[in-house]
């Protein structure tokens, strides 16, 4: 079984002038079932890495293998298909649609990836139950707390059972109590088999992961912590 993520000299330089090497050529392997934190200060290149891993941006060098598939050679259709099925993205700002209920927000993840309509609702309800929001299916984001909103976003990310759960500062907009609850949820999801990558600048959050990769000035350092057994 190929690793979920394999980076071979992956690089991203934003065209200038002057050109900005946001991510210098990097090599990285993340196996299935792993739980990795990517840490670094602001402007270190964390977001660039998230966008590349999430297939929202294309690298300017190297290659990125997702489930053993070289994404650099893929067209928009295939990259969109991978985003819709294999990657679950969680954002700092939640990105919930404000006028839709929790259930409808989760249903969005099945809208474009050819999931039959009949399967979408049960899957979305299951996902919301798994994050502890089975009782708030019809609540709109304005009536949900920040922690609940982020759990809805996580339910949306995991409803397709993706290969990779990619969380970009998931606790950035949460208080410490909600942040702790959320990290416990991510821990539990990892235990049920999800590969989790958390980008954070918060050491407490990073401590939940089995391994930590530091990034600074676009340079990815060696991994600390044991790889997944």
């Amino acid at each position, binding site marked *: 079984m190929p690793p979920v993520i394999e980076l071979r000299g992956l690089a991203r330089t934003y065209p200038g002038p002057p050109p900005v090497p946001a991510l210098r050529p990097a090599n990285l392997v993340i196996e299935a079932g792993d739980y990795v934190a990517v840490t670094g200060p602001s402007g270190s290149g964390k977001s660039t890495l998230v*966008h590349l891993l*999430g297939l*929202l*941006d294309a690298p300017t060098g190297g290659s990125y293998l997702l489930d053993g*598939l070289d994404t650099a*050679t*893929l067209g*928009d*259709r*295939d990259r*969109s*298909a*991978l*985003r*819709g*099925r*294999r990657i679950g*993205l969680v*954002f700092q*700002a939640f*990105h919930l*649609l404000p*006028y*839709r209920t929790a259930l*409808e927000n989760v249903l*969005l*993840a099945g*809208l*474009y*990836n*050819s999931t039959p*309509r009949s399967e979408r609702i049960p899957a979305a309800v299951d996902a919301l139950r798994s994050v502890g929001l089975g009782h708030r299916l019809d609540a709109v984001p304005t009536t949900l707390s920040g922690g609940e909103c982020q759990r809805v976003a996580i339910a*949306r990310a995991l409803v397709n059972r993706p290969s990779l759960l990619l969380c970009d500062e998931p606790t950035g907009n949460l208080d410490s109590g909600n942040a702790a609850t959320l990290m416990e949820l991510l821990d539990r999801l990892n235990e049920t088999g999800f590969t989790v990558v958390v980008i954070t600048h918060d050491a407490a959050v990073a401590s939940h992961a089995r391994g930590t990769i530091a990034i600074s000035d676009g340079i990815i350092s060696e991994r600390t912590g044991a790889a997944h057994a």
Partner: protein
Amino acid sequence: MPSSRTGLPAPRLSARDAAAEAVAGIVQRPGRAVLTMLGTVLGVGAFVGVLGLTATGAGQISHQFTVLQQTTVTVEDNGPANNVAPPSTNPPIGFPANADTVASHITGVVAAGVWWPVSLPDGTKFTGSLALSASSSQTITLLAASPGAVRALGLKLVAGSPLTTYENNTSQHVAMIDTGTAAQLGISPARLASQPAIFVGGLPYTVVGIYSSAQRIVTGESAMLIPEHTALADFGNPLPGIGNQDEAQMVIATRIGAAKAVARQIAAAELPSDPARLAVTSPPNPQNLQSEVKSDLAGLFLILALITLLIGAVGIANTTLVAVLERTAEIGLRRAVGARPRHIAAQFLAESTALGTLGGLIGTCIGVGTVVIFALAKDWTAVLNPAYTLPAPLIGSAVGFLAGAYPALRAARTSPLAALRSA
């Protein structure tokens, strides 16, 4: 269709899902949706209303023309070229003594006769009797009419009989009045057998007939008809010349379709020595009139409707563009969960098209309602051509689709990165 490289099905957005997303996008901002639709509502409403009102009006005009105007020819006495009549008197009328008979010999003539409004001195009173207390009226038009003219007027008698040739030839003091005049002067149709009289400036006229309505000339006004020769004897010749209101005229009722032919022959038949003295008016072609109404009025209003539609399109385009800018985060999210640019475009296009269609539907309803209410108020028959009324909502769809094209393109081109950063 499976994706070749990934082994995953290609991302897709079914028409049903796109429609559902569009409806959700509209209902979440109902107030804005209504305002956005307004231009389309007004444009399509104006379009349907203008075409309906024009068709309804034209239908009404053509109806009137086919029944009456289309069978009416009017001939006016313009007077002799060299007026040799003594001062303060009028020349003899231009029509021959046997004008009615001459006209009736022309094929297509149903009835024809000479008539004119009798010019009375100011203050002439019409009274039901000579008694001082008798009710009087000054609003009655006194008309001289030959027996043929009386027939051509198409009177509907309620009592008595029309003026006869005998009464005309012998200048009898008889008269016909309408029911309004009869009521005004206190003459009831039941009393006709007792030969009631009307005094016009002191001259008595025995009422021999009362009519309730007329098809020509005296429609909708109070009038008193006296025989032509009686009028000549009592009040002298009428003043000739078109437009002075008192000139002698001939009214001809024709068979349907014969008016043009009759109009061509009548002047020469009546006055072979000086046909130019008689001015003949034949009915306008109803087809011409209809198309004139259509081209003049409808053309103007349709341009107005088109401008309104254009404004509606700009409104939709503007709102959709604002919505695209406002929802960049949503666009980024949709891209993140697997949407392709074309799906984003389809969603916004579906939203604007749905808005346009809804506006078109409402506009069509308003347009149809306007036509129906207008027709009801006028007691007309509403005419709505299904060929342009039924597809009218599609105009709204087209407006919505075209208006949404540029914003949808903008939405599709929005980078998911920029979109996700924006929130």
